């Protein structure tokens, strides 16, 4: 049986291109296309496609939102995001809202075919670049309880704990006393401390001095 495909994209030219490409394959059949939330939702309810190729940034609608609505209406259609966006934020949100796969518009023909088949079988498909960006996006945020200080902040902290004045710290580190003050305020804020005594205590317990 052919895989029935619906194309949600606001570029007629892109839709035509994809249609021509997929209809050339015997196992696929493009059964509809649309570019507004309303049209996409009602078409899907009516035509019951197996897979939707879902753009994210469309003129009058947002693919993330449309996917969420499809899932809210218990639709079991497989959603394969096909987007220009390769940033992890978009990928995360799209998967969160219930997409089964994510490929880029620059994806090659073979990969697109594999992606459609894979999501149709119920598995997840992310193209290489997508999964790499997603992983990087997941890795970068630091754990909440770990406080990251920059080397210069540590220098400033040490010198505060050793009772140097703002001006002395400034001279030693080749920065202005105003910047020393900003470092001091940032340190207090980042460490959740109230005053210099707190900084001194922190420097000692963390063995900076």
């Amino acid at each position, binding site marked *: 049986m052919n895989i029935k495909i619906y194309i949600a994209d606001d570029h007629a030219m892109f839709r035509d291109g994809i249609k021509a490409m997929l209809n050339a394959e015997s196992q696929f059949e493009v059964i509809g296309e649309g570019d507004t939330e309303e049209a996409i939702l009602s078409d899907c309810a009516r035509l019951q496609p197996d897979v939707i190729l879902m753009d994210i940034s469309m003129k009058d609608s947002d693919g993330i939102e449309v996917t969420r609505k499809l899932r809210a209406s218990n639709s079991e259609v497989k959603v394969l995001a096909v987007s220009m966006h390769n940033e992890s*934020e978009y990928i995360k949100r799209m998967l969160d809202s219930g997409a089964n796969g994510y490929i880029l518009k*620059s994806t090659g023909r073979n990969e697109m075919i594999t992606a459609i088949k894979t999501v149709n079988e119920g598995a997840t498909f992310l193209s290489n670049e997508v999964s790499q960006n997603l992983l990087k996006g997941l890795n970068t945020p630091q754990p909440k309880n770990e406080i990251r200080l920059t080397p210069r902040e540590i220098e400033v902290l040490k010198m505060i704990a050793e009772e140097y004045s703002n001006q002395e710290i400034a001279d030693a580190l080749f920065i202005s006393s105003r910047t020393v003050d900003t470092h001091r305020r940032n340190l207090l804020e980042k460490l959740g401390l109230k005053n210099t005594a707190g900084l001194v205590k922190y420097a000692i317990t963390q063995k900076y001095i």
Partner: protein
Amino acid sequence: MEQLLSQNSFLRDVIDEAPYGVVVFDASGVILLENELARQFISHDNQSLVKRNIKEMFQVFEMEELLTQIIEGSKESFDVMELVFDEKVLTVRCRKRQDWSILTVQDITKWKHIEMTAVQSIIETQEKERQRIATEIHDGIGPQISTTIHQLETIAENIKESDPETATRLESIVEQSNEVSSELRSISHSLMPRVLLDFGLTAALQTLVNRVNNSNRCKIEFINSFSGEALDQSIELNLYRICQELINNALKHAKATYIFVQLVKTEEHLTLMVEDDGKGFDLNNLKLSEGIGLSNIEMRTKVMNGELNIDSAPGRGSVVTVEISLHEH
């Protein structure tokens, strides 16, 4: 001197009618003479300035210093443009004569305001235009080139057996086109980061940092202690642009190997701090492109009513801080 003037009402009138504030003080800084405008601009209590000391009237660091130099005689004159004083912006000029010095004060608050509005609208127009071009590339040309690539691939696939040679050539065209497409995407991104518009400042800075890390040119870390509550979009865009410029400087000019980008929120302020370990620079001796970059940063900071502080010395890296008040926005 006051006596002299009381006898010469013509001279008194001239001074009173001058379109700027006039103050005359003696060798020790005691004010001998003022006009109405000077009192308006300088006096905190709107009381007469006569017999008070000029240094007490200007308790602003740079003015105190300059006035001391005039009184001590190490300076003959000074001009201070754009002195922020008592919520006003003043231009202050001082000239020393033998026994006394004359100081004139002009209130340019209104002009500064007009200038800022103009700068703001220039920035906004520029950003709008960038956004238009970026959208055109990202949503228009981008998908079109993707479509073209897909069609080429379909043809290549179809003739693979009948004409393998042409198919191979088509495949290499596909590869070149893919490069064009990815180049377009990165141009569109630097023109207008969609992540910023869609997900806000912290997500956009994280993306920017990831991009630099991916390029393997330098290690860059984003330390964020800002919850990411939505700020005014123009503020977010300005902070993002400043950060973009600073990272760019650190990579291109300073050849930094490590950059830290921090957003720290205190009760009232948001601080953006960018530190790098690069060559550093001498603020008084900038290359033209660096100078333009920094003056853009300066302009954007001013438009946000923020404070900019740049610390750098040759060989010592640099620390740039932009602080904005959260309550105004």
